[in-house]
């Protein structure tokens, strides 16, 4: 049996795929968070960073495809494993009893699916801008004179909505919860966890999840409380430009 069949066909192989793709995705979300935290600096900083990412060209698409592959495999394997697990216990017990399985570990499929829904919304919101076409009008002029999308303003405008902020907080909360089991679980699946450092791993896993949640939560909270803001004129300018577009008769 070669590596590919072992990964895709055996029970342990599928769990290893879950672990490896999970590791990539954890790496991505941490990088993403660090990038986002630049919102606390001058708008110039995060806008220049976003421009740099956009400027990667084909490399950006390679990274995106790789991440999409990881998300796809992670979900595909989760569904396959879930189906097999259902089949292995078609009749459940009358008396249910849980001894040491954590709540996070028992709700991975629910937290996972809500996070997936959030990712789709998040892409539609900030990447494709399908939900908020006015974001296309938000532009920033960098120090060297290049005009780039104003990511800072998009974030401030997005999180000014209480509904968006709440959905965001709930979603990153669930993602952190998903992570609290997922992070330690991936070490077990590839055979690196032992009782010798299992307790430390548990602590690392929980601290990491809490830190990740705190890092994410602080962004919408700062916008809502006005700690991160933009002069009203920049938002009004966009609103005016959008309405003038709408009022211009087309054709």
């Amino acid at each position, binding site marked *: 049996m070669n590596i590919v069949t072992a990964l895709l066909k055996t029970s342990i192989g599928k769990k290893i795929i879950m672990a490896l793709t999970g590791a990539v995705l954890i790496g991505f979300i941490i990088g993403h968070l660090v990038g986002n935290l630049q919102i606390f600096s001058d708008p110039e900083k995060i806008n220049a960073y976003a421009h740099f990412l956009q400027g990667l060209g084909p490399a950006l698409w390679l990274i995106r495809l790789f991440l999409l592959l990881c998300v796809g495999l992670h979900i595909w394997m989760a569904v396959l*494993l879930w189906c*097999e697990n259902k089949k*292995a216990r*078609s009749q459940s017990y009358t008396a249910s009893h849980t001894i040491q399985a954590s709540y996070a570990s028992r709700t991975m499929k629910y937290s996972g699916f809500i996070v997936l829904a959030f990712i789709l919304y998040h892409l539609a919101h900030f990447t494709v801008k399908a939900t908020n076409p006015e974001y296309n009008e938000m532009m920033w002029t960098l120090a060297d004179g290049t005009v780039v999308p104003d990511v800072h303003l998009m974030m401030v405008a997005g999180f000014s909505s209480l509904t968006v902020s709440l959905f965001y907080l709930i979603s990153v909360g669930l993602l952190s919860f998903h992570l609290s*089991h997922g992070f330690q679980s991936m070490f077990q699946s590839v055979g690196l966890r032992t009782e010798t450092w299992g307790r430390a791993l548990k602590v690392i896993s929980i601290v990491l999840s809490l830190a990740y949640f705190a890092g994410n939560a602080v962004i919408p909270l700062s916008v809502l409380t006005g700690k991160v803001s933009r002069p009203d004129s920049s938002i009004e300018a966009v609103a005016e430009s959008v309405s003038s577009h709408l009022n211009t008769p087309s054709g």
Partner: protein
Amino acid sequence: MKVKIKVWRQKNQESKGGFKVYDSPELNSNMSFLEMLDVINEDLTDQGEEPIAFDHDCREGICGTCSLVIDGKPHGPHQGVATCQTYMRSFEDGDIITVEPFRADPFPIIKDLVVNRKPFDKIIQAGGFVTVRTGSAPDANAIPISKEVADTAMDAAACIGCGACVAACKNASAMLFVGAKVSQLNGLPQGQAEKDNRVLNMVAAMDEAGFGNCTNQYECSAVCPKLITHDFISQLNRDFVAATVRKSFKSKPSTAKL
């Protein structure tokens, strides 16, 4: 003391089962759980009803024959104890105790509380053999083994193959059993020659039998009457990865190509 038992009755594998409630006669609190079932069965036999079928053999916690899920937990309320060594003093007078068979599709119900655990035998068979030197008896201690390695192998070998790990796992996964059986030999010098084939074949037999997958929740080790640690699941995963990688790249002898 007296208890009521709500017990699963099922005539055979094909028939549909259901719960029935029975009152126990007056019990001595120092009776074992199985002895309680024995006295209920005596009553049932006297009344002309079919006695409750359940598995049992040594009744001293070493054979792995007894099973039962008692109030949702395989082998009853205690930790590190099999059903046969669970005593009625662990319950209160008047308790209603739910008794179900191990539920896993690879373990079909034969009758009432008796399930067929043959897939475990198939996994053991798939593990193959250990090459040993035949002829005159070897010198004692001819192979040096560190105390730690020997003790860990012994921890794994403590598995009595009862199947409680499968019964407790919400996915009916057999990873703790297979992990223990693989680690028992793979850690020792005598088990090295067949190490890779052993893990690959045993995992294949486990998958073939239709057990579920491990979701790292460790309910298995929590109910294990021999307290087998889930470190052996981690060890199984590690051995599986190493064996798969080696098998994928290592050159094969000419006889293997025939």
